[in-house]
């Protein structure tokens, strides 16, 4: 039995080709990313692990360097010029994030160290006080462990039940099953906007609306969405939205939690320390208002400024243009990979970001990744921190190529050539 045979039917290939956005110069954009100029094994790097983390453009690197060289100081504490400048830059970064996701007020945006911390913050600060014995939390079968384990552990600790929205063979959520899972017991729905393992874009607006009708709040894991899809948290009406800076061409060590103000006011702090305190005695502390209430300690100042620069960079090119180029690459790559003998694409949702998970009859994903590495092609292999997804397809692992707007058609061709080399070596 070959468990993945039925997967290799990309609806894509019957449709007419996707056109590239007019005037888009991928080579010129690629030139702005220093790491992409590197060679390995004497071959130019083809970086196709963008779903794990993205490379940084020159303006982001320059902003960070310049900030350390000219502007660096602590935030919120001092009366001197450097501190005031740093504080202003840090808060300006917050404002940029707010505008990027159309958040109503800057104070609904909290800086964290990443998506993982943002989700844990909500699981602790909102989940603990609001989810109790007999209640239910709903996640989907597509979740990254970061949006699964915090809820699983919360449910265990408080005596609640975790429910899972199933997926079909294409990797799309079963919305009818979701509606059946919702009930008065549902306190919270935590769903990913885009699957990191398969690339599926979930109908997040419908998910949120259904949950609200049932009286539940919704957390959206936007780690894989923020770099591909324009986000409007007010139009979505989500209660929480999280993403990571490092997947959005920004620095590592910075992430964003957007939350509706009403929740933030009620939530308990997640960590305690400096900067989040109004007054402290040995008996008692009172806490400042959000966002500071959730940003204990010296925050990731330069990372926030770097994220602001990354958002400026993305805005300058425009997410719709980025999405159009990536759709073009996805279409070409899907067509070309589909013609490779023994290759099966895993995850064939109608709505996908530029990511292709696949397995090959000839070689294990680790073998594929190792041989591609000799060709200076970087892809991800493994379970992608989404073991339940792998289990759903009865696979121990997949190979995953994920494309960003700095990837080119030549990168796709190098991947295809690399895969032919894999076949030659392992057949």
């Amino acid at each position, binding site marked *: 039995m070959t468990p993945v045979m039925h997967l290799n039917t990309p609806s894509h290939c019957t449709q007419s080709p996707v056109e590239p956005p007019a005037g888009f110069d991928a080579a010129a954009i690629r030139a702005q990313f220093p790491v992409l100029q590197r060679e390995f*094994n004497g071959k130019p790097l083809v970086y196709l692990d963008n779903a794990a983390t993205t490379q940084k453009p020159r303006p982001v690197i320059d902003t960070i360097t310049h900030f350390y060289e000219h502007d660096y100081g602590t935030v919120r504490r001092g009366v001197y010029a450097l501190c005031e400048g740093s504080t202003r830059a840090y808060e300006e970064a917050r404002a940029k994030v707010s505008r990027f996701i159309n958040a109503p007020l800057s104070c609904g945006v909290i800086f964290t160290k990443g998506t993982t911390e943002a989700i844990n913050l909500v699981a602790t600060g909102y989940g603990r006080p609001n989810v109790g014995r007999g209640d239910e939390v709903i996640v989907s079968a597509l979740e990254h462990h970061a949006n699964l384990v915090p809820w699983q552990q919360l449910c265990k600790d408080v005596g609640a039940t975790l429910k899972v929205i199933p997926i079909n063979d294409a990797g799309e959520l079963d919305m009818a099953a979701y509606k059946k899972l919702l009930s008065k017991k549902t306190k919270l729905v935590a769903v990913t906007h885009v699957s990191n393992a398969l690339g599926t874009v979930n109908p997040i607006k419908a998910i949120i609306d259904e949950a609200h009708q049932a009286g539940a709040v919704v957390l959206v894991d936007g780690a894989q969405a923020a770099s591909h899809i324009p986000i409007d948290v007010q139009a979505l009406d989500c209660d929480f939205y999280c993403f990571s800076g490092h997947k959005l061409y920004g620095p590592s060590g910075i992430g964003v939690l957007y939350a509706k103000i009403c929740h933030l006011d009620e939530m308990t702090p997640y960590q305690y320390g400096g900067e989040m305190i109004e007054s402290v005695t040995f008996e008692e502390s009172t806490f400042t208002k959000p966002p500071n209430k959730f940003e204990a300690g010296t925050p990731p100042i330069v990372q926030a400024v770097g994220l602001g620069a990354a958002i400026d960079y993305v805005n300058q090119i425009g997410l719709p243009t980025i999405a159009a180029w990536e759709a073009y690459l996805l279409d070409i790559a899907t067509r070309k990979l589909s013609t490779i003998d023994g290759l099966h694409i895993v995850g064939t949702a109608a709505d996908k970001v530029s990511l292709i998970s696949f397995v090959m009859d000839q070689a*294990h994903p680790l073998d594929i990744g190792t041989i591609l590495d000799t060709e200076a092609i970087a892809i991800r292999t493994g379970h992608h921190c989404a073991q339940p997804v792998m289990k759903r397809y009865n696979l*121990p*692992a997949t190979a995953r190529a994920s494309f960003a707007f700095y990837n080119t058609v030549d990168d796709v061709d190098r991947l295809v050539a690399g895969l032919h080399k894999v076949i030659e070596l392992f057949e």
Partner: protein
Amino acid sequence: MTMTHSTDQIQAAIVETFKTLPDWDSRYKHIIQLGKQLPNMADADKTADNIVKGCQSQVWMTASLNDDGTITFIADSDAVIVRGLISLILRLYSGQTPQTILETRPSFIDDIEMTQHISAQRSNGLHAMIKQIQFYAIAYKMKLEQGL
């Protein structure tokens, strides 16, 4: 009695073979060839208990103590390149005494000049496999010393 080579000789022979291979491609081809030739482990032995943790592919290993005080290792993986690495490791360690195993550093890994490519990559489980072999050697050494 079977002919046993000293572990130094075995490592030298492995390194010699790799030296004759001019580039990464041919070295990988060699490893893949070894991987294809490695005898399969019986499916019945591919149990959760025998899984070597810390590898990106699935790796299973069993060990048994022979009457002459040497240990026989059997290992397998679902990835061919990992099977090739297993083949090299078993060639070095299987059939040796616990004492020899614990005294033998797998220097061939550095010497075949694939360090950057292979041993640095924890994902292939090389590190975890060697640890597992040492773990068995310690366990059997204690067993022998206690006369069990």
